[in-house]
């Protein structure tokens, strides 16, 4: 599919909007439908589309394996770190009220970081699974 001009142009047009939509889903999740999980999947889907059109090695250069693997663990650490931050500021684990002087703002801040953690882990895991599946048949050295 790498040589198809229409696919390449359409994908190049689409991918920025997909990433923008993912960010919208991520940050608008407090008001509308969506949240970290959906946003993470959409980010992963954008990179998967890139890999389908431009080939897996190109996607691997764009989002290297090391980045993806650290995303897998980093999201969980962000989530757990929010809990630890609550502990350090004198609350219970995963207690968001203490994150800001105004408890409601503390809640918003906590939810924001927790959702960010979910998005990072989910997109990392989806991408990693895709890389490993798609890379299997081709050249085993490259996985």
């Amino acid at each position, binding site marked *: 599919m790498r040589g198809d001009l229409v696919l390449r142009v359409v994908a190049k047009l689409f991918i920025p909007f997909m990433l923008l939509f993912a960010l919208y889903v991520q940050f608008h999740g407090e008001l509308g439908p969506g949240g970290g999980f959906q946003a993470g999947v959409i980010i992963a889907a954008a990179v*998967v589309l890139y890999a389908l059109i431009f080939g897996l090695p190109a996607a691997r250069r764009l989002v290297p394996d090391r980045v993806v693997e650290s995303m897998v663990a980093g999201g*969980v650490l962000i989530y757990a770190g929010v809990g630890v931050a609550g502990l350090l500021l004198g609350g219970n684990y995963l207690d*968001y009220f203490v994150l800001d002087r105004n408890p409601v703002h503390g809640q918003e801040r906590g939810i924001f970081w927790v959702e960010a953690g979910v998005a990072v882990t989910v997109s990392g895991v989806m991408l990693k*699974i895709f890389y490993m599946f798609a890379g299997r048949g081709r050249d085993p050295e490259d*996985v």
Partner: protein
Amino acid sequence: MAVLVIAIAARRNLFSVVMLAGIYSFLMASVLVALDAVDVAMTEASVGAGISTVLLLAALYLTKGEEAKPIHRPWLPLAVSIVVAAALVYGSLGLPAFSDPAAPIHAHVVPRYLQESLRETGVANVVTAVLASYRGYDTLGETTVVFTAGAGVIALLRLRRRAQQRKDKP
């Protein structure tokens, strides 16, 4: 959707089975939108119809395109699934009517979430408030499950590659 399920079961060509499963996921997402569960519908559409279709196609690339003929007669599995389905339908008869406000599940913590969540968390989407704040521990557990799944896939697929390399070396 029932027609789709029968078509998926009857097909032998795996490519069309994957495509039909994607269509099934999209139909399921529309059903969820009709039930006002937009968050779940979004997840179903992106994961069920999007990512998992791509993953199944990637797996299909590694195998043959046709399903092998089954070794056994399908009657025993068919009987088991019919009995289980009958038990589930029988159990669903005892559930309260759809969107019945007096149902037990709507009388426990739901009124408090619906009325207090905006004041307590400043988040207008109740789903997000419950997911990230009231049930923060559960969501942490879910994220850990996703992480564990990813780590498991990495461990399994890498292990096989290393074993292959070791076999190739001597």
